[in-house]
């Protein structure tokens, strides 16, 4: 193209003679039709092979099952075989290439379409209400991987972040053991627990072993085992937790968690209580 532009440019204003008129050439036109056709055939066959290899891969026996439920601006992770329910931070075991333990994700949505995307682990798959989608990941390196929702789902779509922790088998076993325990129940923070159970908190959140069994918001049974609040927006510290409960819009304007209009004493009590849920 550059060659054409330089070679065939007009040289000088007085150079007005018209060039030779050529109308077409069947031979070259055939060439630049047939060659792309061949390229497309090869490219398609390669693509199709990879599609079938990924989408139709049978699930190995050793695979981990996780059900992912998309909610407006947070992620629910259920481990049906382990009886664990958590949110926003997915823990999975490292997969050893010799005896792979991939994680098979079943993707559901509680409201609108979301999309599960952790770019370093896999492509994305949508979570569509009224439809069950599946995908799998097979991580070979431990560490924390960041991802987020990739299909616009409302005001706080941008802050529907998620983290995947790929743990060594030992770390993962320890994590599972802790998650399977019921919620901590220390008599010293009974006041905070009472606030939680008598306010509307319990309508939306679950804390295993208490009266709170709501499913609209994240399960808080082991809240303090998570590194972040509000689906990855801020670090899970005591101050942030208190501010998040007091006024969710500070961190996440338009989040569906309401500001509960608690007084300072209630806020302190409830923060103290939640801080014990390790």
């Amino acid at each position: 193209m550059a060659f054409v532009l330089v070679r065939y440019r007009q040289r000088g204003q007085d150079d007005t003679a018209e060039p030779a008129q050529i109308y077409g050439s069947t031979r070259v036109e055939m060439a630049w039709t047939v060659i792309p056709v061949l390229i497309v055939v090869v490219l398609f066959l390669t693509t199709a092979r990879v599609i079938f290899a990924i989408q139709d891969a049978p699930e190995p026996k050793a695979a981990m099952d996780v059900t992912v439920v998309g909610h407006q601006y947070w992620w629910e992770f259920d481990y049906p075989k382990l009886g664990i329910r958590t949110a926003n931070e997915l823990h999975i075991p490292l997969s050893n290439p010799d005896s792979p333990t991939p994680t098979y994700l079943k993707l559901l949505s509680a409201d609108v379409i979301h999309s599960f995307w952790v770019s370093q682990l896999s492509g994305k798959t949508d979570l569509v209400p009224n439809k069950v989608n599946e995908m799998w990941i097979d991580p070979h390196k431990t560490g924390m991987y960041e991802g987020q929702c990739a299909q616009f789902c409302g005001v706080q779509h941008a802050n529907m972040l998620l983290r995947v922790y790929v743990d060594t088998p030992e770390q993962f076993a320890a994590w599972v053991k802790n998650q399977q325990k019921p919620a901590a129940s220390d008599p010293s923070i009974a006041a905070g627990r009472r606030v939680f159970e008598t306010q509307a908190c319990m309508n939306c959140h679950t804390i295993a072993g208490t009266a709170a069994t709501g499913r609209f918001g994240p399960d808080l049974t082991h809240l303090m085992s998570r590194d972040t609040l509000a689906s990855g927006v801020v670090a899970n510290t005591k101050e942030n937790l208190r501010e998040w409960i007091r006024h969710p819009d500070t961190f996440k304007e338009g989040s569906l968690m309401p500001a509960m209009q608690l007084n300072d004493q209630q806020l302190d009590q409830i923060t103290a209580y939640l801080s014990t849920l390790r």
Partner: protein
Amino acid sequence: MADTTYTIPDIVEVTPRRWSQADILEWLGSWVTTVDHKKLGILYMLYSIFFLLVGGAEAIAIRIQLMRPEMHFVSPQVFNRLFTMHGTTMVFLVGMTYIFGFANYLIPLMIGARDMAFPRLNALSFWLTFFGGLLLYYSFIGGGGLYGAGNAPDTTWWAYAPLTERAFSPGHSPDYWALSLIVTGFGTIGASINVIATAFSMRCKGMTLMRLPLFVWLNVVTSTLALLAITPLTASQVMLLIDRYLGGHFFDTQAGGSAVIWAHFFWIFGHPEVYVLVLPAFAIANEVIPVFSRKAIFGYPAMVAASVGIGFVSLSVWAHHMFTIGMTSVGNAFFALSTMLVGIPTGIKIFNWLATMWGGKIRFATPMLFCVAFMVQFLVAGLTGIMQSVVPWDWQLHNSYFVIAHFHYVLVGAIIFCLFAGIYYWYPKVTGRMLSEKLGKWHFWLFLIGFHTTFDVMHIPGILGMPRSIYTYPADRGWGTLNMIISIGGIIQAIAVLIFAVNLVRSYFKGKIAGDDPWDAWTLEWTTSSPPPDYNFATDPVATSRRPLWDLKHPEDPDWKYE
């Protein structure tokens, strides 16, 4: 056209005798009630350029918000409205109207006719489109309805259900979105019927189908596609409104509806729509490239076949927008293949343009500069498009900034560049004056630099995992610097477009007088005066070949000998 710059106070103070109130009313009336294809073409173009500026301003606001991580230039709610309105405006109010601006003005002139086939339908179509646009923007005031302050649509321009259902969007903004697109959609349908009827039934003597300028051919394919594509869109909008107000459950997933059906309906419109927008850009390039290369278009029959081929193939590629929605592996493979096939006819076009330039004598006037840049950019856009047709790649790239970069390479790099090329090329015919070449070159180079600064860089954050439609992003993801560069490029483009706007207005008053045929071109519109009289041609022209004017200028070597 730029008579509009006479404001009423000026008239009252400066030239009270020449412009009485009755004169102004008569002048206004002549535009509002006109059925002349040239005046309607100008109205379409002014409308398109106006909304290009509006949509551009929205884009700049979006880019300022994304300049740095965790910026607070606009609230998340406003940001979501901005990108929804930016997309809707650019596709429906800019893209769909520039097509009919060019088609209306030029097709009758190119085929030697005195008007479009249905002049009154033409006027109706324009005014439907016009009021559809007003309705969309009125949502800024009325969209909130009973729920408080007004707001514009904020559910993205593809408006995936069930987010648009009343459970999740209780205000009226989705209604404004749906209704205004139904109204502009009817305008598009009317205009498309008109283009097809005109091209097939209004041709002058000697203008056989195989002598039609490629511009007209491409507009016929465009209009056919528009007819096929707008219909499912309108149907789905009606279904959405039934869901929202008459208790329907088409897309209402909470009552057993299907979100996937909306996606199918939308993209069976949405993908042909891309070709509806880009084929008129090809149409412009097909006229500009030969004239400024001083050669006949290379492989005319293949160009016609490729255009029709693109039209056909584009009807079967829609679900490549849905590779991540959970289709079967066979479905994914089918749409990968059909998408790759589009590359063949578009490749033929690029090769033929290059062959047209090969051995020519290229004049780098502003229209040609825009077309050359268009060719390179469209090639890149095509290649990134093929990348995304490879489904496993698309699982990674879908809905990321890579896709945004890809389709802006098509929409800006191809369509807007050709739109500018076309305006520089035909402005002298419309107004009788040349656009300033000096400002034109400034416009071109600034826009080119801005374009590449923005959209070349934009591919990278997509590969790094940055999804689209996000109003902010965490600082630790490392996307900040890239986004800053992208935003700076956006501002450079905005400056270039402002230079263009100045050029449009200034040249109307001070531009060089153009004459009938300033570019030494070959199609029939250059045989009549600039601007053309109401009746276009004093005597019906006769087309002796694909380039009737070449035959007149070169009686020793006319085209018809070679056809």
